[in-house]
């Protein structure tokens, strides 16, 4: 189901998409989710290949399912393919986006981890490790913010913000298991509280 106003990808669009994900891969410091705001800007706002709801449901489904969060990228690829034709293109989209986002970072990280391990006492290595920390944390918070905004699509309301804030507080401060909170979120949604 294409989101409202989503445009299909044609020909060169796929190559452009692949190139953009290759580039994002190298910039995905601090985890794949820090690139989510950029993917949102590129896929939803700039090209309108994905609807707002499709973007946020991709991230939510990947978070709800077991496994690394990076799988949201596979779902973005899936939805791009479904918008452009059907299941065959959707599988191609999965392969394209997942390969794009993983290939360059894997090569770089493998080589750098070997090198960094041997040189971990050097001053530039320590400066890089510590210097990136505040920026990486700011980007993670930005991702949370953009997701919270995306979940408001359709019918915004303060109870939803409250749910996000309470979740953040509980996970930050307690050892409560994530599954309880996801179940609570689903239940509150079904009951129409949020």
């Amino acid at each position, binding site marked *: 189901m294409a989101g409202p106003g989503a445009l299909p990808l044609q020909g060169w669009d796929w190559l452009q998409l692949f190139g953009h994900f290759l580039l994002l891969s190298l910039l995905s*410091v601090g985890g794949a989710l820090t690139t989510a705001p950029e993917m949102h800007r590129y896929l939803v706002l700039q090209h309108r290949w994905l609807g707002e709801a499709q973007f946020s449901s991709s991230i939510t489904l990947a978070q709800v399912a077991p496994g690394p969060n990076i799988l949201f990228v596979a779902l973005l690829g899936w939805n791009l393919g479904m918008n452009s034709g059907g299941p065959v293109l959707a599988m191609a989209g999965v392969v394209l986006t997942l390969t794009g986002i993983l290939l360059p*970072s894997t090569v770089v990280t493998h080589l750098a981890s070997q090198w960094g391990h041997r040189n971990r006492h050097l001053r530039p290595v320590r*400066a890089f490790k*510590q210097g990136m920390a*505040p920026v990486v944390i*700011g980007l993670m918070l930005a991702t949370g913010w953009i997701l919270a905004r*995306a979940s408001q699509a359709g019918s915004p309301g303060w109870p939803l913000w409250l749910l996000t804030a309470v979740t*953040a507080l509980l996970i930050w401060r307690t050892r409560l298991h994530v599954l309880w*909170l996801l179940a609570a979120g689903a239940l509150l949604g079904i009951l129409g509280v*949020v």
Partner: protein
Amino acid sequence: MIERETLPEAPPGPRSLADLFLSFTWLAMQGFGGVMAVAQRELVERKRWLTRAAFVEEWAVAQIMPGPNVMNLSLVIGGRNFGWRGALAAMAGMLTLPLLLVLLLAVAYGRFGQHPAVARALRGMGAVAAGLILAAGLRLSGGLKGHPLGGSACGALALAAFGGVALLHWPMPFVLLGLGSLTCLATYARLDP
């Protein structure tokens, strides 16, 4: 973040490529809302592939390098043991089964997603998912206290990155490269040689 530590004698590592693949599959399948929380428990406490100190060290590398943290962690651990083939086996373990599951979920969602109850449930879970990521950022921010630039400067820098991307919608790469190179240089200046 990481003190100089001498690693004690290497603990028993993975036995084979198949062992790597299956172990990381098992690890990934336990990770609801992200794998990081279970990775430490599974790899350090249960399997004893890594000491705690070594885990922290690998985690820092995984965190700093481009790529998803937990994928990087699996690739670094696999690579340390069996080179390239180990890195690929570990990453394949992390991805294969969870990818199949999440695609099944997407197909089911495509079929039942319009059902109002499903849409509302997902809306609630989406708000929770956003909170999970905010919490991860807040948790990590605790580690900024001992930062060479000082806690308040770090807070301001994190806020600047947040504001640029979340509120002003600047492209993330500019923020990362621009602000990041500034903080790295400032940190370099503050560190003991």
